[in-house]
């Protein structure tokens, strides 16, 4: 169930240039699953006004804590990055439908492809896949080394490749370039990142089962305002889906990319 909760900041640190990792404590953690997101009110004042959608990156149910990783670039995320341990944050969540962990079976291999601030939700996904005995390969794209993060964390869980636009870390180029070279063997892929990346992946692995997490500007985050519409491919039951409540994760082939 979707709930609104004032959660407490347990930790906040800058883990890469303008990239913050924040851990929040509260009850709604119990209902979270990988690929879902929360809608965060960064200030109790009326400006910035709208909530910010941020993916769930790490869930720790026993501690009632979850972690987000976000880029403090615009006005709202900058305000968020100024919160201190002990401050309260108004969180609406968990929202949307996440990555289907159940679609990968024990012993199979899952390819996880992330780009920039699309990388965070893949971490919890990888944790849960590994927990059920799915092997994971991580291919993570960033602009430069400066803004890359979580190398240690991902490496612990499986084979991990970094790709940067300028080659400052790992492979130079696009994640799809690396994938072409690597030609990994896998049963299913999950991805979150910029649209061009998702598009390239979807056409590259047309034959494979795959799940893609999309982004759009949001109003309500719960399906009421029709802000985050995405048209579907021919032959789907509905003409459109709402990214916030039908997604943000869709099976490849459902939405027009």
């Amino acid at each position, binding site marked *: 169930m*979707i709930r609104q909760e004032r959660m407490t900041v347990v930790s906040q640190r800058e883990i890469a240039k303008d990239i913050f990792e924040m851990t929040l404590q509260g009850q709604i953690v119990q209902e979270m699953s990988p690929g879902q997101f929360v809608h965060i009110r960064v200030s109790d004042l009326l400006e910035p006004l709208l909530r910010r959608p941020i993916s769930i990156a790490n869930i720790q149910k026993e501690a009632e804590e979850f972690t987000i990783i976000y880029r403090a670039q615009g006005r709202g995320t900058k305000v968020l990055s100024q919160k201190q341990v002990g401050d309260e944050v108004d969180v609406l969540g968990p929202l949307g439908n996440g990555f289907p962990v159940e679609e990968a079976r024990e012993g199979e291999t899952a390819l996880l492809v992330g780009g920039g601030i699309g990388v965070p939700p893949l971490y919890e996904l990888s944790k849960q896949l590994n927990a059920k005995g799915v092997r994971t390969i991580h291919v993570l794209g960033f602009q430069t080394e400066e803004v890359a993060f979580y190398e240690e964390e991902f490496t612990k869980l499986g084979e991990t490749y970094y790709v940067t636009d300028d080659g400052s870390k790992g492979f130079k180029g696009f994640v799809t370039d690396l994938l072409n070279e690597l030609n990994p063997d896998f049963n299913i892929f999950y991805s979150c990142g910029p649209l061009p990346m998702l598009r390239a992946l979807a056409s590259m692995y047309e034959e494979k089962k795959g799940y893609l997490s999309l982004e759009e*500007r949001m109003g*309500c985050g719960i399906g009421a*305002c029709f802000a985050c*519409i995405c048209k579907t491919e021919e032959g789907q039951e509905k003409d*459109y889906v709402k990214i916030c409540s039908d997604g943000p994760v869709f099976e490849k082939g459902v939405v027009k990319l």
Partner: protein
Amino acid sequence: MNRLDIQLPGLQLKNPIMPASGCFGFGREYAGLYDLSKLGAIMIKATTVEPRLGNPTPRVAETPAGMLNAIGLQNPGLEKVMAEELPWLERFDVPIIANVAGTTPEDYVEVARRISTAPNVKALELNISCPNVKQGGITFGTDPVIARELVEQVKAVSQVPVYVKLSPNVTNIVEMAQAVEIGGADGITMINTLLGMRLDEKTGKPVIANVTGGLSGPAVKPIALRMVYEVYKAVDIPIIGMGGISCVQDVIDFMSAGASAVAVGTMNFIDPFICPNIIDALPAKLDELGVKHIKEIIGRSHR
């Protein structure tokens, strides 16, 4: 004693608080959060004859204490609203106000004729003020003669009272209000959004795919309040006020200026529980103001 009930043409409101059209869908999402029977009424999303997919995305953008939207009247169309959405809403003890939109007068008439027969639709809200569609919408809302004629035509077919939703994008809001009153409107709802724009910081291009969008939220409250105040003095039909309501004090403000009830739009997105929270907070506010029934507040700015 119910200190909050309000009677308006066609509407027996338990309390004067309702979600504004387009900010609450057809209620399904919020029904997962709280009991919709708590609301005074529900203004459902604009309905047109045919289903509409609306404008391309991005459709929303943030502005200082406000937001822009250019949804473009996306809705499943009259048939589906009649067959699925309205019957589903019957499970709640709450009157529905159907927001009626179209491209031509015939569209409005057709939607009004049909939707006004739904058992839980207690009033219509003629949307002559949507700034986000190329045809119809706002053009009906900025010309008093066209507006009056449209109201007359819709009144002729509607089975329930007709409220007209005014656009703030006009030189003279009083003239528009008087025109729809003459046309036979049973009430006025105001205000719809103000035409605005946001640019992408890097490219300088409009953020909203439709170039401009409708501005709503707390930023517009002073304008909405002024317009309600002016219209209250000039017409004899009741006003449902809206535009930037974000707390119980804002409700008092709109009713003081002359609104008989209010609608909450944008703030549902920021605080999904805002309507029930405001309803719960009203009695204590009335105590603070030394008022027995909320009716006593209506129009007090003018006394």
